[in-house]
């Protein structure tokens, strides 16, 4: 059958998890859910109004799959199933340009010098857009390709030398980002191989002393791994689900119940927040850069409501972790786009992190109304939402093709564990 990647059942992948991103100066918080993009101005204490002269609201015509702010705080990008990438000024919130993609967009990244935007499409192709091009309708140029895989995450290294692409075939590719990327990026620096399920997310631990930043990745195999990107060497593996006590070490849990869904570094990478499917809260990992190890620091539970974050973002200035949960098009519910925002403050090595109540959240009720669409949401809907997100993710990313191989692997790791005990 042709085009394995496109013939995925549309119905099952239609729900899209809610996304959150925080401006590097902590000025804005953006949430995307379904086709809707919502931005709150934390300093002004009001919703930011987005302006796009080319189209009516909503600016995206289908589910948004990726949003992010540029490192220098000037740009914001959004892209998704409507095959468009929108580049916004994150000062005026004007849409600077709309880029058309041939296929649906799965991931985006902005180079750290703010000169290029890269996005990945449903065919595993990564495209680059040169922001210096004068025209408003910028044309993307192919940069590199993962042969017929789905790219789940794109990330520039902090020094801008490399572009990293992770896929559902367990692979992370590290490619030199050339001076002129419009001729393609042909020099592969390394592959980071070790995950045994789809790779869902990437994040960097910025270099403190050493020359190289370390890479973190999360996966459907319920681990977070630490890598040296120049060699592709696996430095450490943290079985977060097991270590956080979510999974009996006999591995009884339902398959993919504990897929790592998102990662977010805080305190320059000293602590790493991890969201896991089925976990009502987050796991904080301690990253020891000089020893090159990862260990579980604590589990922050969210009491009193069914909150399983679908996306995390860090506000470096206030040491707050922003979390969102929700989906678009939830079957059986009236909310077209359901989102719930929570904040954990006091993310620090010494302090005890606190999950802020709605009355303590920065921006208050106004922020909740802007980002959630409503100040309060029916709790039950979130349980359904979590299930829907899980099903969609499995359908999209799990390779049902290798059941025996996976079983073998799990068996092996279980035996290893038994021997150690």
């Amino acid at each position: 059958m042709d085009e394995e990647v496109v013939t995925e059942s549309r119905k099952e992948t239609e729900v899209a998890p809610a996304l959150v991103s925080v401006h590097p100066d902590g000025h804005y918080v953006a949430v995307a859910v379904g086709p809707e993009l919502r931005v709150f101005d934390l300093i002004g204490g009001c919703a930011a109004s987005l302006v796009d002269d080319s189209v009516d609201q909503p600016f995206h015509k289908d589910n948004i799959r990726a949003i992010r702010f540029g490192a220098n705080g000037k740009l914001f990008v959004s892209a998704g199933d409507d095959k468009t990438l929108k580049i916004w000024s994150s000062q005026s919130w004007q849409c600077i340009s709309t880029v058309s993609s041939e296929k649906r967009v799965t991931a985006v990244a902005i180079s750290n010098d703010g000169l290029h935007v890269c996005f990945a499409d449903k065919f595993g192709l990564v495209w680059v857009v040169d922001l210096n091009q004068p025209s408003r309708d910028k044309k993307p140029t192919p940069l590199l390709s993962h042969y017929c895989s789905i790219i789940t995450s794109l990330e520039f290294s902090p020094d801008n030398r490399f572009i990293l692409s992770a896929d559902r075939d367990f692979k992370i590719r590290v490619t030199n980002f050339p001076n002129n990327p419009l001729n393609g990026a042909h020099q592969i620096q390394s592959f980071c191989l070790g995950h045994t399920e789809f790779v869902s997310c990437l994040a960097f631990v910025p270099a403190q002393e050493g020359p190289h930043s370390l890479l973190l990745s999360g996966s459907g195999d319920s681990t977070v791994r630490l890598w040296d990107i120049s060699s592709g060497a696996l430095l450490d593996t943290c079985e977060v689900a097991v270590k956080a006590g979510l999974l009996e070490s006999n591995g009884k849990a339902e398959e993919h119940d504990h897929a790592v869904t998102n990662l977010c570094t805080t305190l320059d990478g000293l602590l790493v927040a991890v969201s896991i499917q089925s976990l009502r809260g987050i796991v904080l990992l301690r990253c020891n850069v000089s020893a090159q190890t990862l260990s579980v620091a604590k589990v922050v539970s969210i009491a009193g409501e069914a909150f399983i974050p679908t996306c995390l973002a860090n506000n470096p200035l206030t040491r707050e972790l922003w979390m969102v949960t929700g989906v678009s098009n939830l079957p059986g519910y009236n909310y077209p786009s359901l989102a719930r925002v929570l904040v954990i403050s006091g993310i620090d090595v010494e302090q005890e992190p606190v999950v802020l109540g709605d009355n303590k959240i920065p921006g208050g009720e106004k922020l909740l109304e802007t980002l959630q669409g409503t100040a309060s949401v029916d709790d039950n809907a979130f349980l359904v939402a979590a299930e829907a997100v899980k099903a969609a993710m499995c359908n999209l990313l799990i390779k049902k093709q290798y059941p025996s191989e996976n079983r073998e692997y799990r068996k092996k790791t279980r035996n290893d564990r038994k021997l150690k005990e």
Partner: protein
Amino acid sequence: MPETGVNPTHSKSTGLPRKRFYRARAHSNPLSDSHFPVPISPSHVDYSLHYPQFFPSSDQSDSSRKIQFADIGCGFGGLLISLSTLFPETLMIGMELRDKVTEYVKERILSLRVANPGQYQNVSVVRTNSMKYIPNHFEKGSLSKMFFLFPDPHFKEKNHRRRVISPFLLDEYAYVLEVGGIIYTITDVEELGDWMKSCLKNHPLFEPLTEKELEADPVVKLLTSATEEGQKVARNAGQTFQAVFRRIVPSDQIS
């Protein structure tokens, strides 16, 4: 592994597997995944299974010997068999997508090992989709030769991305090839020949071998004669189109 000559799928006189028992669909679609194990990383490839004489135990830590030649889409394995005796100390592997064809090559190698003690120990085959899993099998810069002999043409424009030589896949081949390593391609389809040559010519990490170098390379002569597909073309006196290129360091990086 057949111990005696009573295996019905093997020829009684030579003990070699008979091809007609291993016929398969002529073409496979590299876009659709099937059931085969994929090594998590090159360090997970068990050399002792492929080359038991070179690696008596599965502990490979003491050996620096690595696979150096890869025949991509090796078909029935003719090239590997010729290369095996020409480079007896070099480890080589064929990659083949079709299950039955891979099984045939496996049997063929095992029979040759039995019939020629001490020989053909350096060659093996693996069933995989080379378009997806090359980096899972080979470390960076570990290969000195890659072969693409008579690959499937995929004529239609929209199927060009299924071609095993393409601008993007060349990035991966350049990654696994050492600097100075050589990529050999040949086809009897002129359009595909032009395509492969232009992909290689336009790639910053490859340069063509000179006529002189081609003449001096004993492997070039095997391209037309060693494989089953090559022999078929030769029988029909068909034309062939080859492109042989070297992995280089791009000009802007020579210091």
